[in-house]
């Protein structure tokens, strides 16, 4: 790896733009309450408590892991507080994280909460909001590989069910503008993207990982305004979901949200148009089975 492969494009993206955008995003997010990717920090009151070593240790572990489920985050918070003899309030995890976020914000980083589309569990992910490729010199991905990842995102976002088949991805590898990828190279790349937790794979079909969704949601919403739909129940962006079959309705509901919403109802009906809901209702998945990220 050549670590001098350094390329930086932040100059035209200054703090001013950042704040403008941030404000827009905030307004958007306020409009849809309970946003999927809502910041744990409320930006308007960031005079949170000072950071202590317990917070720093929590942040370091988040940096090493990238994403942790809610239960692990609670355990980790407790561990960090005990290690540094700080008072620990079990139900104050979000306050604890808010303290960290208030200090991370100037660095364009944030710990965000989001839901796994697979099992409906909550996760915390450390996301980087810097729109640069400061990063690319240390990136393990070449330009054409990044382009293929972008195309895979296109396929997933524009699909009905939030999935892209390996066949479709392989076909789009033929249309790369940078440098074409052979079939075997594409397959290898997909394995790496799954291994690095950008994509999930099940039976030859690829979905966006929870972490990828948490980090990318604001961008996906603004880039794919016309394609993206939110879940009728939780108002978060919906990829893997069920869709109302009445053409004039067509609302989307996440599989885990379907499970929770229809649980115990005799005859499932669409919460928007009251038509019969014809899909199989999945079981509610209990937390604390070591869950997939």
């Amino acid at each position, binding site marked *: 790896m050549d670590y001098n492969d350094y390329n930086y494009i932040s100059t035209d993206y200054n703090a001013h733009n950042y704040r403008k955008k941030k404000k827009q995003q905030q307004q958007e997010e306020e409009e849809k309450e309970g946003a999927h990717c809502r910041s744990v920090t409320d930006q308007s009151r960031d005079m949170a408590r000072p950071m202590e070593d317990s917070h720093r240790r929590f942040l370091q572990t988040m940096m090493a892991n990238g994403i942790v489920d809610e239960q692990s985050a609670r355990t980790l918070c407790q561990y960090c507080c005990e290690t540094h003899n700080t008072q620990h309030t079990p139900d104050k995890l979000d306050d604890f994280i808010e303290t960290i976020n208030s200090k991370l914000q*100037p660095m364009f980083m944030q710990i965000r909460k989001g839901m796994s589309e697979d099992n409906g569990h909550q996760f915390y992910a450390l996301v980087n909001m810097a*729109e640069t490729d400061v990063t690319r010199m240390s990136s*393990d991905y070449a330009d054409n590989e990044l382009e293929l990842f972008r195309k895979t995102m296109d396929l997933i976002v524009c699909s009905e069910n939030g999935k892209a088949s390996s066949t479709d991805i392989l076909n789009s590898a033929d249309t790369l503008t940078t440098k074409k990828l052979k079939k075997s190279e594409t397959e290898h790349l997909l394995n790496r993207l799954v291994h690095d937790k950008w994509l999930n794979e099940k039976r030859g079909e690829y979905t966006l990982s929870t972490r990828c969704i948490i980090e990318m949601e604001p961008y996906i919403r603004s880039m794919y305004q016309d394609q993206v739909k939110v879940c009728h129940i939780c108002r978060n962006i919906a990829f893997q979901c069920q869709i109302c079959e009445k053409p004039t309705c067509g609302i989307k509901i996440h599989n885990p949200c379907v499970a929770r919403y229809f649980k115990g109802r005799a005859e499932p009906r669409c919460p928007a148009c009251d038509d019969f809901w014809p899909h199989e209702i999945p079981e509610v998945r209990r937390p604390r089975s070591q869950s997939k990220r």
Partner: protein
Amino acid sequence: MEPTQLLGFIKAEMTQRKRVSNTQSSSQNKRQSVPLASQEEDDDSTFTQPSSSQVQRGLERFTPAQVDQKTAEVVQFFLVRDQKKIPVRRADLVKHVLKDYRNIYPEIMKRAARTFDQVFGLKIVEIDSKNHMYILVNKLETAEAPPITNPTNPKTGLLFVVLSLIFMKGGAVRENLIWNTLKKLRVDAGEKHEEFGDVKKAITDEFVRQRYLEYVRIPHTEPVEFEFRWGQRAEVEVSKVKILEFMGELHDQDPQSWTQQFREAHSGSSQSAPSNR
């Protein structure tokens, strides 16, 4: 840190695409490409530390928000490099991140150091004062491993074995002894290892680049022979006390029985910055 950085590039691209499609103009769509080839050679000599009055004057040219933004970029740059355990060269930092802000370099570094200290519990350490190379080390005292699984790099184990061997042998070990010892542990440096990949390359190249090891020619040897020593990063990051405890467990022996090593491990400076990162 996990490779969370992949997305930064994609986001930048998306924002640009969006901007282009909104304004129907591509004037903003400029990507600055840094010529890559020349950087190895380009040294630090063109950069002179600005004086405090230069810094003062320099600061007047920028708004506080601009200085904050630049500080954030420097912090990001350090974090990205740290993810791969690659030292930051001042020359790279000045050329690719600071750019027009080079004359307030000391002020930006001061702020970045404060951020690492107050927010991340990390410290910037200069490991090479001639070439001005920096790494991040953990300031938090060692604690037992966190209750959640850290994704560990399998090569960390390999590195630990090599560092232990060097430490137990008094600080320097001939190359051949390393390969022979590893062979006894059923790791053949000549073959591709299932977990570590190319073992020889990891030890002679990757760990050396990351400054965990030094790989130096032994003078007056014919044919040429090399030996390994601890690199600067190992000195500040790896606990010799931990290594002795590990050896003690391995050999079922009291760490104190290695008198010289025990004394060195507990001689203060080397106990400093172990980390569980």
